[in-house]
């Protein structure tokens, strides 16, 4: 009877295990395997030992792309998510026109990254861009520049085009806030807590699981960033805006699949590291 039960459990989880093995274990295993190979993606592979990993040490584009990916992830955590949280708190007070603003903030999430990138490409254009025209109009013409073509502004401009599209996380946080018992706020109000104290000491602590989920989602999104750098800067100028996903792609189209997969392994490790840090931070605070 016990064996029959075990068999039943086994048969129930078998489809999930098969799907997991095909779509997760196999690709990662293949990635890991080919990262030790010299392979152009077409012909046969040859064992390269640790050559691809040694190449990482001298590959300054990898260093730059890893750093940019980490900075982008950090900006997600320290700017993107707090901004979404702030908007969610404000709109949760159901200020006049809150439904309109919720729609406005959420709307860019319905537009493809590609279309948004094209739009920002024109906004940032050095000669006829909207940003430069706006600066000229308000008497700040001296600040005009080729935003995506200069070393000092290209990467901040690339991040900035995305950082204000916080709609998806704002909606998630609003849903979390709606579940908080109103009596807690009333009790705090009776005790004399002002609006800032109530948000800081009630809303944010109770939103912790939602914030943790938002941070994880934001980080995983930034690790996969490809379309915007590809369309807006193609990694330039001088690899200043290169991110990991784009660097991997470059190696692929250069027929260097072995090294591309080594970079992909590094991306997985970087992602794992960032997620671990997030989990540690939130676990510490829970304790």
């Amino acid at each position, binding site marked *: 009877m016990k064996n029959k039960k075990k068999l039943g459990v086994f048969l129930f989880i078998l489809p999930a295990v098969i799907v997991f093995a095909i779509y997760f274990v196999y690709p990662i295993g293949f990635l890991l395997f080919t990262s030790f190979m010299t392979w152009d993606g077409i012909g046969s592979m040859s064992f390269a030992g640790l050559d691809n990993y040694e190449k990482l040490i001298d590959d300054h584009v990898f260093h730059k792309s890893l750093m940019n990916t980490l900075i982008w992830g950090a900006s997600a955590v320290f700017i993107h998510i707090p901004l979404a949280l702030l908007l969610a708190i404000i709109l949760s007070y159901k200020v006049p026109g809150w439904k309109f603003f919720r729609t406005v903030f959420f709307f860019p999430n319905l537009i493809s990254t590609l279309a948004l990138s094209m739009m920002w490409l024109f906004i940032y254009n050095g000669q006829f861009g909207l940003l430069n025209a706006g600066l000229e109009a308000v008497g700040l013409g001296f600040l005009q520049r080729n935003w995506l073509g200069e070393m000092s502004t290209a990467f901040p401009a690339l991040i900035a085009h995305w950082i204000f599209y916080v709609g998806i996380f704002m909606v998630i946080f609003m849903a979390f806030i709606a579940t908080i018992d109103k009596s807690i706020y009333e009790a705090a109000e009776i005790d004399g807590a002002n609006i800032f104290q109530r948000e800081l000491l009630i809303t944010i602590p109770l939103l912790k699981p939602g914030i943790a989920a938002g941070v994880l989602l934001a980080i995983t999104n930034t690790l996969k960033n490809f379309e915007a750098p590809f369309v807006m800067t193609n990694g*330039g100028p001088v690899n200043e805006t290169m991110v990991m996903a784009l660097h991997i792609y470059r190696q692929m189209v250069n027929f260097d699949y072995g090294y591309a997969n080594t970079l992909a392994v590094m991306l997985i490790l970087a992602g794992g590291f960032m997620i671990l840090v997030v989990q540690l931070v939130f676990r510490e605070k829970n304790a």
Partner: protein
Amino acid sequence: MKNKVIVALILFLMLVVTACSQGDSNDTEAAQEEHELTFHTHYVGNEGRAETIQAIVDEFNEEHEGRAKVVIDATPDPQTMYDKNRTSLATDTVADIFYFQHNPVDADRYYGSDKLIDLSPHLDDGWGDSFSPEGLDHGRYEDQIMAVPFESMMVPIYYNTELFADAGIDEFPTTWDEFFDAADKLMENGITPIATGTGENAWSTQLMYSYIVSSIAGEDLWELELDDEAFLEGARILDRMFEYSPSDAVGLTYSSYASYFINENAAMIVNGPWMISQFYEQGGDEFAEKVGVGTMPAYEGGKGEQGAVIAGVNFVLTGKKHEDPLKEEMAVEFMKYLTHTDNAKRLFLDSGALMEAANFEINEDDDADRISIDILENLQAAPYEFKHLINAKSTAVANEFPSAVSALALGEVTPEEFVEQMAGVEE
């Protein structure tokens, strides 16, 4: 009872006969199955050749109805199309018919992949005669022909004759010194001399670099190392060229700097004949009338000759190998149709594109535009032809160029460091 058995038997026999006849009909259908073939192309949308290519595909489909149907797999951006070809070849999902920008390193990868049709047996019926032997060499791999030459190029330096005249320049410069003198005069008139950019694959910039280096090193420039003295001097001149380019040249994409030329904000652009249709469609007849065709200026003391042109096979056409011989036959049939002399002539007349099967004559009755004819005349008068960087070197070198040249333009690297970087990638 007996009657029931007879009726049942008759019904059974009818069923069997129907089933058999159904089977026969299925077999016939299978034999006459329409093969759907994908043709991966960037000749779509507003691209100059798009309309003619679509017409050719439609006509082929009409003529081969019931046997083959070609479906266009569109990737409007050429660079993305090249990338997609490379990755889909690796994943065995490449289109049934496609073309790629030829360079000797990548071509061998494609041809040696064992994933393409060997076209050698199909060339004997006269198809092979459509192409020059040198053109066919671009598709040769061991004793096979894996691709046929598709589109050629002659890359002139287009210039706006009116802007030149306004600046007091009578003729297109014949030396680089004259070129920079003319550029100074254009700058004084508030005109950006040369429309170029380093975005995407830095297309026009790499063409200009190829021209500059050839004027120094001659027609055999690609036999030299990329850090040779000729390339170094070329990098110095290219560095100077950025002083005469749009202020946002770093990162500027083709469509943007092309619009600078068409909107008459810039006086010159280096590009192929496929741009002619853009002159007419975006600039109008009045603008197209102003476009002059210039060729390579000479470098004092250089081995190159004034008037030499970047030309030769740009794209080669090939097809995916199939287990089904009928499908493969239909793919080859389409390639023959597409590269037929009549269609090559149509493409030239409609868009200015120089298809490789160019053994056609232009008659007085033909509505050939003046710019296309100027280009052909310059090609015929050229002392020699040579390839540009992307056609001559590997994809890795071509992909490094935009980044390296951006660094040069921004002053992040010296010309010496630029050529070292390029040579390093080639190694």
